[in-house]
């Protein structure tokens, strides 16, 4: 079990309110991702759930019991830190054994669980090494191993992949997703990377300035963002926003159109524009174009074979089905 419910949870440091009162329910077995720009309070929220920070007011319920005042160890949660926070003077084996040692698990059971975790995480050959002798990815796996052996009701991940290089990050992302499929334990994952959020989450919580902007499945957020912030944050490259006359035609203050929903042609189309930078990725080409009224520069995704370069003229046609309309407050118009 691992159902976590936040009721009117608020956190302030002195005068400064980091998280205004907030409600959130995380269902058992769900992979929930907190995503938002840096400084939006997502890590603080995670630390509140972990019990490493005290709530200023409000209530945190874990599996129906009030855990607001419980110390971290009593909440039955395991956390993986951004810096891994391995104990440098202990071998991998001892690192993984530490939570069990603290819980008073007997030796035989400890050994069994260590080997099970090591096998699952490909660490069997490294059990006697110190963390300093491991690579970033291996350290990350040890940190996860240390979390697994406690058999927690939920895992908390605090930007666990941000210290890894790009290739390793993709690999670890898959491993964590697979781990979740296998264990079926609740996981809460904090990241500022919307790609991680989109690929891993069952449910994404988009945060800004401590407040929840929108909660939903990745595709829900992609297809029906509640406001301009979510629209701009989810999706890569970012959604283009057009204000002014063009938007008024759609009876909106602003319209948003994703780069992948704009058709690029070198002969005809709705808008004429000049190519600024063309990023040829092989599979796709991202064009940063100038000249569209109300949106400069506009980002457009074209096919991989499109042969345009800096200074060329292109014609753009947005897909009318994928135009998002927003009012003056930035909220979505249905």
């Amino acid at each position, binding site marked *: 079990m691992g159902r976590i419910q936040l009721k009117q949870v608020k956190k302030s440091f002195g005068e400064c309110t980091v998280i205004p009162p907030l409600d959130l329910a995380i269902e058992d077995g769900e992979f929930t991702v907190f995503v938002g720009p840096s400084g939006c309070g997502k890590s603080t929220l995670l630390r509140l759930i*972990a019990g*490493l920070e005290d709530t200023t007011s409000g209530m945190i319920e874990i599996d129906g019991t009030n855990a607001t005042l419980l*110390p*971290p*160890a009593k909440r039955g*949660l*395991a*956390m993986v*830190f*951004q*810096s891994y*926070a*391995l*104990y*440098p*003077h*202990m071998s991998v084996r001892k690192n993984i054994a*530490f*939570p069990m040692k*603290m*819980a008073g698990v007997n030796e035989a059971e400890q050994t069994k669980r260590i080997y099970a975790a090591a096998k699952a995480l490909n660490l069997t050959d490294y059990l006697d090494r110190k963390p300093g002798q491991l690579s970033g990815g291996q350290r990350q796996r040890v940190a996860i191993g*240390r979390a697994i052996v*406690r058999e927690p009701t939920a895992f908390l991940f605090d930007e666990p992949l941000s210290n890894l290089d790009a290739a390793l990050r993709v690999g670890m992302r898959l491993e964590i997703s697979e781990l979740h499929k296998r264990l079926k334990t609740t996981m809460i994952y904090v990241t500022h990377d919307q790609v991680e959020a989109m690929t891993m989450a069952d449910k994404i919580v988009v945060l800004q300035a401590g407040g929840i902007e929108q909660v939903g499945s990745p595709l829900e957020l992609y297809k029906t963002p509640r406001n301009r912030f979510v629209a701009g944050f989810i999706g890569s490259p970012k959604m283009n926003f057009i204000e002014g006359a063009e938007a008024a035609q759609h009876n909106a203050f602003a319209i948003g159109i994703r780069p992948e929903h704009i058709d690029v042609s070198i002969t005809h189309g709705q808008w004429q524009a000049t190519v600024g930078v063309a990023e040829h990725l092989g599979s796709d080409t991202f064009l940063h174009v100038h000249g569209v009224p109300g949106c400069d520069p506009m980002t457009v995704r074209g096919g991989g074979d499109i042969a345009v370069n800096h200074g060329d003229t292109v014609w753009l046609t947005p897909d009318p089905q994928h135009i998002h309309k927003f009012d003056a407050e930035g909220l979505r118009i249905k």
Partner: protein
Amino acid sequence: MATKASKAAARLMISPAVLLLLGWMIAPLALTLYFSFLRYNLIMPGDNLFVGWENYYWFLTDPSFKAAMINTLVLVGGVLCVTVLGGIGFALLLEKPMFGQGIIRIMVIAPFFVMPTVSALIWKNMFMNPVNGIFGQIASGLGFAPIDFFGQFPLLSIIFIVSWQWLPFATLILLTALQSLDQEQLEAAEMDGASWLNRFRFIMLPHLARAITVVILIQTIFLLSTFAEILVTTNGGPGTATTNLTYLVYVSSLLQFDVGMGSAGGVIAIILANIVAIFLMRMIGKNLDA
């Protein structure tokens, strides 16, 4: 600075300094060794005869030598215990954010800047004196007999004074070590269910091991040669109760004017210091490798 030529040049460049330092060390050492084999007494001028190991024989069989050895070890051991344990305690207290932190930290570190002679005199006359000292006054005020610290507990009193001087050093080193501990490690341990005591034992103490090693090594070197505090307070007495090896060498050469004997004592002190150093390096030097 990696080519052969530049390495050779570097050696050439630093050689004057190395030679100077070497000479600086070798000359007194050679003279001390030379004197230690002579019958060289300032009260009896005349031929300074070569007497072989005689000075060593008399120094080692002197009853005050055994006392001095024990006193030296008790003094060093006692001060190390107090400063390391006290230092860890103070470091733990000072690490917590609190009101007036900066001033409190400076005050804790202040004793280190007081000269040994001055601090010993202050403790002797203003605190531990049975008649005029604060401790004596308090005891009398409460109706107890005042304690004559240097009469009744001479070595303990000196351990106390020297500890007071060295506690700031230990605190400072251990405090900085403690501050370099990654907070996420402590939080991880907290999540793992470790109580404060367990976090201290399994996370903080291993992290401090290296700093503790440094404190013990540096302090031992300085504490073996404790002198000013003894000279100012007890003059090595009563009897030989507070005579350590350094003080015994002083007594032989400058109170009994026996330069030969004093030199022999000095050589023995050097040998003992090296034995202690080897032991320490073996015992805890491993901590410095990692």
